[in-house]
C-alpha cells in the first residue's frame, strides 16, 4: 500500500517534469530517471548551439543600430545648422516688418488720430444700433459695423473711403429716421410664439405699433415682437388712430424711457393685473371676504327683486277698491274690513298689530346685509394686521436690510384692506337700496293704511247720504 503511494508520487513528479520541459523534448517520453538525465544533457547541447547563433544575430544588429545612430547624428547637426540659418532669416524678417510698420505709422501719422476717432464713434453707434428700432427696419447695419470696426482697429488693413462714407450714411440714417414716423411691412413675433407679417408704424426711435399693439425690439432676436401686455385702452386707441391716419397732427403715447425708449412698456409685463394680485396676495382672509361679499350681494339682489314685486302689488292695491290678500297692504285692509263696526281706537290697535305682523317679512335679511357691510372692512383690517405680523416675522428672520422681502408682505397686508372696502361699498349701497324699498312699503302700511280705510268709510257715508 505504502509502495503504491510512492510510485504514484514518482509518476506524478515525472509528469510535472515533462510538463516543464520543452515541447520537442516532451515528444520523447523518458522511460526512467537515467534516460531522463540523458535527455536533459542532449537538450542542453542543442540549446547552447542555438544561443551561439542568437548571439551572432544580436551582434549583427548592434552593428546596424550603431550605423543608424551615426546617420541620425549627422542629420541632427545638419538640421541644427538649417535652424540657425532660418532663425537668422526670421530675425531679419522681423526687423523688416518692424521697419515697415514704423514706415506705415510714419506715413499714416495724420490718419491715426482720425482712425481712432472713427473707431470710437463706430463703437458708440454699434451699441446704439443694437437695440434701435431703425435697425429693425434696416437690418444688416450691425454686421457691417462689426467688420468696419475690426478693419479700422487693424494695423495691417486699410479702410476704404467708401466704407467710411457708408458708416457716415448709417449715422445720418439713424439721425433722420429718429425724427420720422414711417410705415413698412415686416415680420412681427406674436406672444404665442408665431410670426406674422404686419404693417408696422415706427414713431422715431421711441415706439413701434402694429395693429394697435405696441412692439418691442431686441437686437438679439432680430425682429419686432408684440408686447404680451399692452398699455391702457386710451393709449392703444390713439395708436390705432395714428396707424389709420394719412396726414395731420395726432396725439399718441410714446415711451421715451431707457436708452432707446420703451423700457417702461417692457416693464408692463412684470406688473401683475388686479386679478393676479388678488390671487397671489389675498390669502384665506381675502377669499373669505370675497365669499361673504358674494353672498351679501346675492341676498341683496334677491331681496330687491322680491321687494320690487311686493311694491308693485302694494301700488296696485292703493289704486284698487277691493282688498287683495296677496300683498301686505291688502292683508292690513282686510283686517279693517273684517271688523266693520268697531270703534276707532280698537281699529287702530288691530291695524297696528296687523302692520307689526307684516314688517318682519319686509325687513328680512336687511340686518344680514348691514352686518356684512360692517364686518367686511373689519375683516380687511384683520388681514392687514396678520399681514403685518408676517412682515415682522420676516424681519426677525432676514433682518430689515432687504426692502423687497418686506414689500411683498406689506402688499399682501394691503390687499385684504382693499378687498374689505371693495366688498363694503357695494354692500352698503345695496343695503340702502333694499332698505329704501322696504321702508317705502312699511311707510305706506303705517301712514296710509288708516287713511285708505278712512277714505273708504267716507266714500260709503257720502254714498249713503247722497
Amino acid at each position, binding site marked *: 500500500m505504502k509502495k503504491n503511494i510512492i510510485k504514484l508520487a514518482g509518476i506524478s513528479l515525472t509528469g510535472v517534469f515533462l510538463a516543464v520541459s520543452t515541447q520537442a523534448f516532451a515528444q520523447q517520453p523518458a522511460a526512467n530517471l537515467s534516460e531522463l538525465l540523458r535527455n536533459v544533457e542532449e537538450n542542453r547541447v542543442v540549446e547552447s548551439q542555438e544561443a551561439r547563433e542568437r548571439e551572432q544575430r544580436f551582434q549583427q544588429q548592434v552593428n546596424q543600430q550603431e550605423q543608424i545612430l551615426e546617420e541620425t547624428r549627422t542629420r541632427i547637426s545638419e538640421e541644427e545648422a538649417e535652424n540657425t540659418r532660418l532663425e537668422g532669416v526670421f530675425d531679419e524678417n522681423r526687423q523688416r516688418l518692424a521697419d515697415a510698420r514704423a514706415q506705415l505709422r510714419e506715413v499714416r501719422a495724420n490718419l491715426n488720430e482720425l482712425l481712432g476717432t472713427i473707431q470710437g464713434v463706430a463703437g458708440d453707434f454699434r451699441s446704439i444700433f443694437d437695440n434701435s428700432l431703425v435697425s429693425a427696419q434696416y437690418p444688416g447695419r450691425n454686421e457691417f459695423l462689426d467688420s468696419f470696426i475690426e478693419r479700422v482697429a487693424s494695423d495691417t488693413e486699410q479702410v476704404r473711403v467708401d466704407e467710411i462714407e457708408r458708416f457716415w450714411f448709417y449715422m445720418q440714417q439713424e439721425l433722420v429716421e429718429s425724427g420720422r414716423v414711417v410705415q413698412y411691412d415686416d415680420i412681427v413675433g406674436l406672444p404665442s410664439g408665431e410670426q406674422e407679417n404686419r404693417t408696422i408704424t415706427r414713431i422715431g426711435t421711441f415706439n413701434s405699433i402694429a395693429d394697435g399693439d405696441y412692439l418691442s425690439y431686441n437686437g438679439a432676436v432680430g425682429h419686432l415682437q408684440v408686447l404680451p401686455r399692452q398699455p*391702457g385702452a*386710451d393709449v392703444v386707441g390713439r395708436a390705432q388712430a395714428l396707424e389709420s391716419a394719412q396726414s395731420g397732427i395726432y396725439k399718441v403715447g410714446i415711451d421715451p424711457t431707457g436708452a432707446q425708449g420703451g423700457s417702461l412698456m417692457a*416693464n408692463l409685463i*412684470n*406688473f*401683475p393685473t388686479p386679478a393676479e*394680485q388678488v390671487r397671489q396676495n389675498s390669502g384665506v382672509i381675502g377669499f373669505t371676504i370675497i365669499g361673504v361679499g358674494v353672498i351679501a350681494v346675492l341676498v341683496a339682489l334677491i331681496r330687491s327683486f322680491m321687494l320690487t314685486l311686493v311694491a308693485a302689488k302694494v301700488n296696485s292695491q292703493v289704486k284698487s277698491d277691493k282688498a287683495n290678500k296677496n300683498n301686505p297692504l291688502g292683508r292690513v285692509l282686510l283686517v279693517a274690513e273684517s271688523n266693520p263696526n268697531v270703534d*276707532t281706537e280698537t281699529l287702530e290697535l288691530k291695524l297696528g298689530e296687523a302692520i307689526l305682523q307684516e314688517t318682519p317679512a319686509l325687513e328680512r335679511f336687511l340686518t344680514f346685509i348691514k352686518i356684512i357691510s360692517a364686518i367686511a*372692512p373689519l375683516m380687511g383690517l384683520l388681514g392687514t394686521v396678520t399681514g403685518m405680523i408676517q412682515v415682522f416675522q420676516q424681519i426677525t428672520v432676514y433682518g430689515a436690510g*432687504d*426692502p*423687497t422681502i418686506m*414689500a*411683498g408682505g*406689506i*402688499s399682501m397686508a*394691503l*390687499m385684504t*384692506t*382693499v378687498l374689505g*372696502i*371693495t366688498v*363694503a*361699498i357695494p354692500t*352698503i*349701497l345695496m343695503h*340702502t*337700496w333694499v*332698505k*329704501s324699498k322696504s*321702508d*317705502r312699503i312699511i*311707510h*305706506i302700511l303705517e*301712514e*296710509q293704511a*288708516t*287713511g*285708505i*280705510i*278712512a*277714505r273708504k*268709510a*267716507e266714500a260709503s257715508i257720502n254714498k249713503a247720504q247722497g
Partner: protein
Amino acid sequence: MYFALLDLSDAITDFMNRGGPVLWVIGMLLLVKWSLIFERVWYLHSTHAKKVKQTLAVWAGRSDTRSWRAQQIRNMMVSEISLDLKSTMPIIETLVVVCPLLGLMGTVTGMIEVFYVMALTGGGDAKSMAGGVSKATIPTMAGMVGALSGIFASNWLKSRIDRDLELLEDHMA
C-alpha cells in the same frame, strides 16, 4: 376754441390717469350723486310744488277737517307727498358716506403699487414710486371733496324737505 377744449380734456384725462381707476369710480359716483341732488332740487320746485298746491286745494275743499277720518286722510296725504319727496334721499346720503371709503380704497391700491414698485426696484428709485403715491393721494382728496360737498348739499336738501313738509302740515291744520 377747439384747441382750448382739447387742452381741457387733456388736463382732465391726465388728472384721471394719475389718480388711477378708483378715481373714475369716484367720479361716476359723484356724477350720480350730484345728478340725484339736482333732480331733487328740480323736483322740489316743479312737481312737488304742483302736488302741494293740488293737495291743499283738495284739503280746502273738504267740509270736515276735524274728525278722526279727516285726520287719517290728512296723514295719508302728507305721507304720500313726503314719500315721493324723500324717495332718493337715502341713496344720496349713502353716496356721501361711500365717497371717503372709496378714497381710502384708492389710497390702499396706490400704496400697493408703491410697495410693488419697491419690491421690484429695491426701493432705491423714489421717482418710480411717485406714480403710486399720486395714485394713493389723489383719490383720497377726491373722495374727501366729494363727501364734503355732498354733506352740505344733502343736509341743505334734508332741512329744506323737512321745512316744506312741516309747512304743508301747518297749512292743512
